[in-house]
């Protein structure tokens, strides 16, 4: 059985979600499919910098100008996803004066507000900067939450009639006579909200036009359609610190280099990054030296990082694209521009467009251009409204509130929740039910989690990215089970348990690269709590063999049992009957 749609967007990253929203707002019947949860790809594994454009002001001025323009737009339409931290390009004694001047001039050329401040002023803004700071350029960088951004885009698309299908992987692109007809997808569980333990199905979706927004995976999708898309995936590492050592984005002011930026993000700070080309975006080595280098090099800029607690590290792959025959060898030289590949023009394959390259900051602009293009193909009129229309949650967003009085929440908790929820805060937090804090590290209450679960089903990682629950210093040790417990009784024990395991495993993955100092103690404590206290490493209900009752002894003999040994036999009988059950 096939379903039909006008436009089919593949990929639930910032690009895909942005396109789906734009199409839906213009009245196009749209379906978005994503193989994981939203932001499963690069969007969920990036730095969270809302570029002022300063970073590209010397090397790539076109990108820089786009960044500053788009960053202004996002501050308006996505205020609950953005924190305007401001940014600094910091010059240390070893850094070249000439480059500093070029950077400053470049910013001015691109209409990026930039001012030079002395080393002392820089240290007043960021007291943990090294004393060696010579001077700095101040630019309007910011931090953006990619998760909330994508979820808001997808939610608005849905609001306008789009179908958003996560955990649905495209397994084939259907081509007939040089024309893309649609795709075949495999649902991990059934269609709709993911539910663990539900068997998967496949579905054929026929579409008038297919948009390949799979970023670093665009080449694979291209191959399914029989065309070459030359993405050059390049990996970068990011290390998350437990607290914010800086509240401003801090960049080292020197030509491209590894480990030259610190982005304050919510409660944490993210250090980055590297740029190393990889073969396969799904399978590349994650190496400890990359993390070590991050901390060592950035300690030159902010010395306290050397002793600070690291909570996890993660890697992302840039979807860099290079037009054929450019011949660049160093990935850092590849442009950060994005490219729209019209396969009809390029490969004489109608009905499909790929979009590659670019960055999150300019996702809306990319989406606008793709949508213009798709609408032209579909013969749809209508102009883009995404630059003016606020995303859900962003309207009239104000954090000036009395949290205790309104929501019964302590002020840091109320403020964090309200910032995350934006204008949805009242709807979510005004509840008559008790509303305890479930994730204490990130101040996430039960009401906010329930709200996210209503949207995300049993996929607790999807709940996590909506709320930040389990993203703090205990990395789920103290809250993962409490979050999972909220699934019950709507979902049964086995579903809840599997959902918990998945969340906990995801948290563990990132911590493997932070196992020293305090995070090592934390990991040990978490392990003891989960494995020993909760017995989760040998949880009997989870084992396929069921419980081996005969491994237990009969307990102290009671007077009658001692006489005939009855109890022990009973135990054996129970074990036997279970075996029978398995035989069925």
């Amino acid at each position: 059985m096939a379903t039909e749609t006008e436009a089919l967007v593949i990929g639930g990253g910032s690009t895909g979600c942005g396109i789906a929203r734009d199409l839906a707002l213009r009245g196009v019947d749209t379906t978005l499919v994503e193989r994981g949860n939203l932001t499963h790809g690069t969007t969920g594994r990036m730095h969270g910098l809302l570029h002022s454009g300063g970073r590209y002001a010397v090397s790539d001025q076109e990108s820089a100008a786009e960044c500053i323009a788009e960053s202004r737009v996002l501050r308006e339409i996505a205020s609950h996803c953005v924190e305007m931290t401001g940014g600094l390009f910091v010059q240390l004694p070893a850094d070249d004066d000439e480059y500093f001047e070029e950077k400053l001039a470049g910013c001015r050329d691109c209409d990026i507000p930039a001012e030079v401040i002395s080393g002392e002023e820089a240290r007043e803004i960021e007291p943990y900067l090294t004393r060696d700071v010579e001077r700095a350029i101040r630019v309007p960088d910011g931090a953006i939450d990619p998760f909330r951004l994508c979820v808001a885009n997808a939610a608005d698309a849905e609001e306008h009639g789009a179908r958003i299908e996560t955990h649905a992987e495209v397994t084939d692109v259907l081509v007939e006579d040089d024309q893309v007809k649609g795709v075949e997808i495999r649902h991990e569980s059934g269609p709709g909200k993911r539910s663990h333990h539900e068997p998967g199905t496949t579905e054929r979706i026929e579409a008038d036009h297919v948009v390949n927004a799979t970023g670093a995976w665009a080449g694979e999708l291209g191959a399914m359609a029989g065309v070459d898309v030359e993405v050059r995936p390049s990996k970068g590492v990011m290390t998350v610190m437990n607290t914010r050592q800086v509240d401003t984005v801090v960049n080292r002011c020197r030509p491209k280099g590894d480990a030259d930026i610190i982005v304050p993000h919510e409660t944490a700070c993210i250090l980055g990054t590297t740029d190393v080309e990889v073969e396969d975006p799904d399978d590349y080595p994650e190496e400890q030296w990359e993390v070590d280098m991050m901390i060592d090099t950035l300690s030159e800029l902010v010395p306290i990082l050397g002793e600070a607690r690291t909570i996890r590290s993660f890697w992302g792959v840039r979807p860099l694209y290079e037009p054929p025959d450019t011949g660049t060898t160093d990935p850092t030289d590849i442009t950060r521009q994005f490219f729209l590949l019209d396969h009809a023009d390029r490969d004489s394959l109608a009905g499909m467009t790929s979009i590659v390259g670019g960055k999150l900051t300019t996702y809306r602009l990319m989406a606008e251009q793709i949508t213009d293009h798709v609408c032209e193909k579909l013969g749809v009129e209508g102009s883009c409204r995404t630059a003016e229309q606020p995303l859900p949650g962003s309207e009239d967003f104000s954090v000036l509130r009395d949290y205790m009085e309104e929501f019964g929440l302590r002020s840091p908790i109320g403020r964090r929740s309200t910032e995350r929820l934006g204008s949805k805060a009242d709807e979510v937090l005004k509840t008559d039910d008790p509303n305890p804090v479930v994730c204490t590290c990130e101040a996430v209450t039960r009401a906010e989690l329930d709200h996210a679960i209503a949207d995300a089903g049993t996929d607790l990682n999807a709940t996590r990215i909506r709320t930040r629950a389990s993203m703090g210093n205990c990395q789920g040790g103290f809250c993962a089970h409490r979050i999972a417990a909220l699934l019950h009784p709507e979902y049964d024990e086995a579903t809840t348990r599997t959902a918990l395991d998945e969340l906990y495993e995801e948290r563990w993955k990132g911590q493997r690269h932070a196992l020293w100092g305090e995070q090592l103690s934390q990991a040990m404590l978490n392990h003891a709590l989960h494995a020993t206290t909760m017995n989760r490493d040998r949880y009997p209900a989870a084992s396929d063999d069921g419980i081996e009752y005969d491994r237990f002894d009969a307990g102290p003999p009671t007077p009658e049992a001692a006489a005939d040994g009855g109890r022990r036999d009973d135990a054996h009988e129970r074990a036997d009957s279970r075996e029978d059950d398995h035989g069925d």
Partner: protein
Amino acid sequence: MSDAPTHDADEFEPVDVFETTEMDLRPGADDCYKCSTCDTSCPVAEVDDEFPGPKFQGPEQWRLKRKEDHEIDDSITSCSNCMRCDNACPSSVPLSQMHNTARGEYVENQRFGREALSALADGNPREALDIVREGQDGLVERLRNRILANYHTSAWLASFMPSVANFVMNFGPARWAMAKTMGVTSEREFPEFADHTFREWWAARGGAQVENPDKRIAYFHGCYSNFNTPEVGKAMVRVYEEFGYEVLVPPQKCSGTPMFANGMLGDARRHAETNVKNLAAAIENGAEIVASCTSCSMALGQEYPELFDLDGIEDVAAHTYEGVEYLRLHEDLEGALGEASVEGSEFAYHAPCHARNQGLDTQAVELFSDLDGVAIEDVGDSCSGISGTYGWKEEKYDYSMEIGEEMFEHMEHAAGETGMTECPTCAMQMEHGTGYEIRHPLELLEEALVAGS
């Protein structure tokens, strides 16, 4: 800022409107691994359901806040600063430092509020005005806290005419008015002022009676033994002189303990400046600093360097001891007591939380159990509940008594009918809850060791 549109330029102006206690303790949150041990040891959390507990108050609140954030949750004022959480934490999270600093910021910012400022910046003067008005509602409470915290000043005023002060302070209607207008509980009797201060006595006796350049101590008497219990101060001097010490009594102000607990860090700092200057001079003079109050020794020895950055403050901290502690370290106190005896007396001893923090909670019982004629019994490790000014606040009085309940019960069960403790406010609470007379260990030492006492 060059050619930027103005609204952008404005956004990047640093907001630096009033001076704050610029202390960034967020990195301290790195040490917390969320075990909640601190919460289980907090006496206030046990009785006050509204109080979120030390873990939230300390590492969580710090981690959740942003540097430019001036919004501190008001629950911080419910912490009594007993510092039991400090001791409980297995991971050395600087909890009390976090609480003290947050409290300081809370008080500092109550006046204007960051919200009022940002409302102004957003062009909503009306909203800003409302916020300021709301802030003023907190004014009375602040005033009350300030008076309690500045016990030093009221005590100093009262000491000019102690009998009138005692009368006025305990006079029913006046107390009622205070409770109504300032929220000082009328359940408690204000401590009586002695008819002379310790310093008056010291001056009258002509200062030190022993001179000894090799054994010198500088006595930090604090407010309470100066104004209310000069007998403790006198005992201290006599015992130390008995051991051949030259006692210096440098000019001094309040240690700051009550001010920390009420977020008056500005006041505390001014007092600390005087204290550090004079105590550092005494150290220069070859003296070690000795306090008879465990909260004073705690303040000088731990809280000072945590909260203030003053010349010589680390030195002062490193040279500070509690009265009995110092003698145990430097003299054969056990030996001396082994040969002494007093007339039969039985004590119910309570270790103040601040003594516990300094590892001094067992010293009195260890020391006196071998003293002939004395029976002494520890009444357990619960908190007395008064925690300085905490139990004086009308809204905290009931909690304070609930916390103290366990100690009262144990005191009743103990054989002794006299209480003993190092801390003057614990003494008030012990007396308030049981009606016992309360003695300081130094007084017993004096009785045992100083001839003619």
